[in-house]
C-alpha cells in the first residue's frame, strides 16, 4: 500500500510537467490549429529564465573598502568578496532571502518574458503557417526548436546549471508517518510537492480564465467556430495571439519551477517535447481536460513502471511504457481518451 502511494506521488511531479506542457500545446492547437514542435523549447526557455534571473540577483560588485588586503602592492583577489547589489540595496537579511528565493521569484520575471516570446513567435513566424499543411508547421517549428536550443547552448554552455530551491523547501516530507505507515516508508521532497500544487494552481487558473471571463468565452467560441466569431465583429486573431502568449507562459512557468528538480540543460525541452506530444495524443487532440488527465496518468504509469519489482519482470519497461500506452490508446481509441469528433481527422 505504501509503495503504491509512493509511486503515485513520484508520478505526480513529472506528470505535472507533462500536463502543463500538454495543456499549452493543446491551447495552441485548439485556438490556432498549429502543431507546435517548439513548445518543448519554450519549456526550456522558461527554465533558463530562472537561471538568468538567479544569476542577475547574485550579480554583485566588490566593495572597495572592505576585505581587500594588499601586501607589497599585490592585492589578493581571493580575499575580496563580491557583494550582490541586492544585498547592498535591501540589507543583509532581506537581500540574502531574495537570493535564496530566486527560483520562485523568477516567476515574476518569466511571465512577461515568456508572453513576449510567445507573441513574437506567433506574429513573426507561426502566423504565416496557418494555411500551410500540418507537415510544414511541424517542420518549421522543429527548425525553430533546434535554433532556440542551440542559441541557449551557445550562451549557457552544454552542462546542466544547478539552480537550488529555497532553503525552506530543502528536505523531504514524511508522508508515511502522517498516514499511519512506518515512518520513512513514504518520503517525498518538499519541492516536488510545491511543484505539484503550483501545477494544479496554474491548470485551475487556465481553466477558470477560459470558463469564467468574457475573454475566455470569446476564445472558446473562436475555438468552436472561428468564422462566426469573426463575423460578429470580434478580432479573434488578436485574442488567439494572446492565447499563444499565455500558452508560452504556461510552458515557461512549468520550466521555471522544474529547475530545482532537474538542473536545466539545453536539451531538456526536446526530452519533454516528444513525451508531451504523446501525452496530447493520448489525451485527445484539442481536448484541454484530456491533456491534463493524460499528463498525470502517464506520469504515474511511468513511475509505476520504474518500480524495481516491475523492472525485475520486464526490464527496461520504464523507458518505453509511455510509448506503449500511446500506441495502444491510438489503436483502440483513435481520438484519444477525451478527444472530440472531427479534430484532426482528415
Amino acid at each position, binding site marked *: 500500500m505504501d509503495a503504491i502511494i509512493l509511486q503515485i506521488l513520484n508520478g505526480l511531479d513529472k506528470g505535472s510537467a507533462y500536463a502543463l506542457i500538454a495543456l499549452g500545446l493543446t491551447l495552441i492547437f485548439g485556438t490556432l490549429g498549429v*502543431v507546435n514542435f517548439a513548445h518543448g523549447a519554450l519549456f526550456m526557455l522558461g527554465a533558463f529564465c530562472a537561471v538568468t534571473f538567479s544569476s542577475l540577483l547574485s550579480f554583485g560588485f566588490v566593495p572597495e573598502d572592505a576585505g581587500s588586503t594588499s601586501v607589497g602592492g599585490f592585492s589578493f583577489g581571493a580575499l575580496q568578496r563580491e557583494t550582490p547589489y541586492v544585498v547592498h540595496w535591501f540589507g543583509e537579511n532581506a537581500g540574502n532571502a531574495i537570493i535564496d528565493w530566486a527560483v520562485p521569484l523568477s516567476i515574476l520575471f518569466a511571465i512577461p518574458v515568456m508572453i513576449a516570446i510567445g507573441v513574437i513567435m506567433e506574429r513573426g*513566424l507561426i502566423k*504565416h503557417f496557418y*494555411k*500551410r*499543411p*500540418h*507537415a*510544414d508547421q*511541424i*517542420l*518549421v517549428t*522543429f*527548425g*525553430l*526548436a*533546434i*535554433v532556440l*536550443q*542551440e*542559441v541557449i547552448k*551557445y550562451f549557457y554552455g552544454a552542462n546542466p546549471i544547478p539552480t537550488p530551491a529555497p532553503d525552506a523547501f530543502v528536505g523531504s516530507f514524511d508522508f508515511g508517518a502522517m498516514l499511519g505507515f512506518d515512518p520513512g516508508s513514504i518520503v517525498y521532497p518538499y519541492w516536488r510537492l510545491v511543484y505539484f500544487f503550483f501545477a494544479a494552481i496554474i491548470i485551475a487558473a487556465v481553466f477558470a480564465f477560459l470558463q469564467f471571463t468574457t475573454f475566455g468565452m470569446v476564445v472558446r467560441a473562436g475555438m468552436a467556430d472561428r468564422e462566426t466569431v469573426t463575423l460578429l465583429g470580434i478580432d479573434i486573431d488578436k485574442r488567439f495571439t494572446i492565447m499563444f502568449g499565455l500558452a508560452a507562459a504556461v510552458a515557461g512557468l512549468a520550466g521555471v519551477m522544474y529547475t530545482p528538480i532537474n538542473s536545466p540543460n539545453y536539451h531538456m525541452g526536446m526530452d519533454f517535447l*516528444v513525451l508531451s*506530444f*504523446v501525452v496530447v*495524443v493520448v489525451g485527445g*487532440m484539442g481536448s484541454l481536460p484530456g491533456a491534463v488527465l493524460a499528463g498525470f496518468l502517464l506520469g504515474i504509469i511511468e513511475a509505476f513502471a520504474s518500480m524495481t519489482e516491475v523492472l525485475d519482470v520486464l*526490464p*527496461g519497461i520504464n*523507458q*518505453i511504457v509511455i*510509448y*506503449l500506452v*500511446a*500506441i495502444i490508446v*491510438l*489503436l483502440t481509441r*483513435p481520438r484519444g481518451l477525451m478527444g472530440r469528433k472531427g479534430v*484532426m*481527422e*482528415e
Partner: protein
Amino acid sequence: MTDQTQQTATVTQPRPRTRSSGGILGLTKKDFGLLVLVAILTIFAPVILNPFPAGSAMAQFNAGYPDLMQRFVIFGIFAIGFNILFGLTGYLSFGHAAFLGVGSYAGIWSMKLLTLNVIPAILVSVIVAGLFSLIVGFISLRRSGIYFSILTLAFAMMSYALAYSVLTPITGGETGLQLRASDPRIFGGELMPGMTPRATLFGMQMQDSTDLRFGAWTFTLNTGYYIAGIVLLVAFYLSIRIFRSPFGMMLRAVKSNQNRLNYTGLSPKPYTLAAFVISGMYAGLAGGLLVAMDTQVGAERMFWTASGEVVLMTILGGAGTLIGPILGAGFIKYFENIVSTINKSTLESWFAFMPDGLQDAFVAVIYPFVGKGWHLTLGLLFMLVVIFLPGGLVQGGSKLATVFRRDRKGGGVEDDAAAQRQAREE
C-alpha cells in the same frame, strides 16, 4: 456524379506521358538523362568534389575524401527511400532513423556471425529493416496526418531507448558494436588475434584507395565508395521506376485525395503500407552500407534528430521530385562536414585582410554558426527552406530557370511536383 467519375478516372489512369513506354531500360528519355547525370556525378565525384589543390588554403572545402563521399551516397539512398513515402504519399514519418539503425545492427551481426563479405550483410539489413518497417507501418498507418507522425516517432524513440538499455546484449548499448577478430564467424572467421577484421567484397577491401595525382591535385578513388555508388544507381533507378509506375500513381492519388480513392472502391492501405515498407527497406539498405563502410554502429544513429535530418534532406532537395533527395543529402552532409570543421583561427585567417576591429566583429558574428554551432545553422536552414522554398532546391532551380528563359514553358516532372506541392498549400 459524372463529374466525380471523370475526375477519378484521371486519378486512376496514368497519364500517357508518365507511362513507361519502352525506351532505354524502360525509362523515358528525360528520366534516362537524369539517371545518366547521377551516374556521371557518382563516377566523377572524387574529381568534382576536389576542385582545390591539396595543401592550398581552399583545400578545406574539398569534399573528395572517401569517408564523406560514402556518406553522400549512403544518405542519398536513405533520402530517396524516404521520398518514396513522404514525397509520393504525403505521410510524414518522424521515425525513419529507426529503420536505418535496425538495418545497421542486422548488418553488423551478419558480419560478426556469418562472413565479412558485405553482400550478405546488406541483404540481411534490407530484409530485417523491411520486416521491422512492416510491423511499424502496419500499426502506424492505421492513423494519418500528425497522428501518424507521432506514432512513428514513438516507435523510433522506443527502439532507441531499448537499444540503449535492455537490448544491450544485442546492440552493445552505449558503446555500440564493432567488428572484432574474436567474432565467431562461420565463413572466413580464421583471423589471427590482433588482425583487424575488415569488410570485403570477394577479396576487395572497402578501405582500399588509389590516389591519382595530377600536379598539385590528388584524387582518391575508394573501393567502398564505388560499391556504394553502384548501389545508389540501382536504388535511384528503382525509384524512377516506382515513380513512373501505376503503383506510384496510386501513391500520388493517396496524397491528393484519399476520400476520392475510397469512393472509387479502392483501399489506400495496401499501397501506403507497401510504400512504407519499401522506404523502410531503403533505410535498411543505407544502414547496411554504413556498416559495410565503417564496420561499427551505435544507438545514436536511431535518435529522432537523425530522423529529422532525413526529413530535412528530402525537403531541402525537393520532396516528390526524383533528384531532389540526392541533392539534399549531398548538400546537408557537405555543409555538416565543412561547416563543423571551421574554427576560430580559420575564420580569423579569412578576415585577416580587414582592419582589426572589423575582423573581430565579423569573426564574432559568424563564429556561433560554425564549428560546434553547426546545428544552429542546420536549424536556421531548416526554417528558411520550409518558409521560402517549400518545393526545395529543385523548385528553386526551376524558378531560376524560368526567369532565365521566359520564352520556353518550363515543363517537366520536377516543375510538376513543385506546382503540385504549391497547389496543395492553397
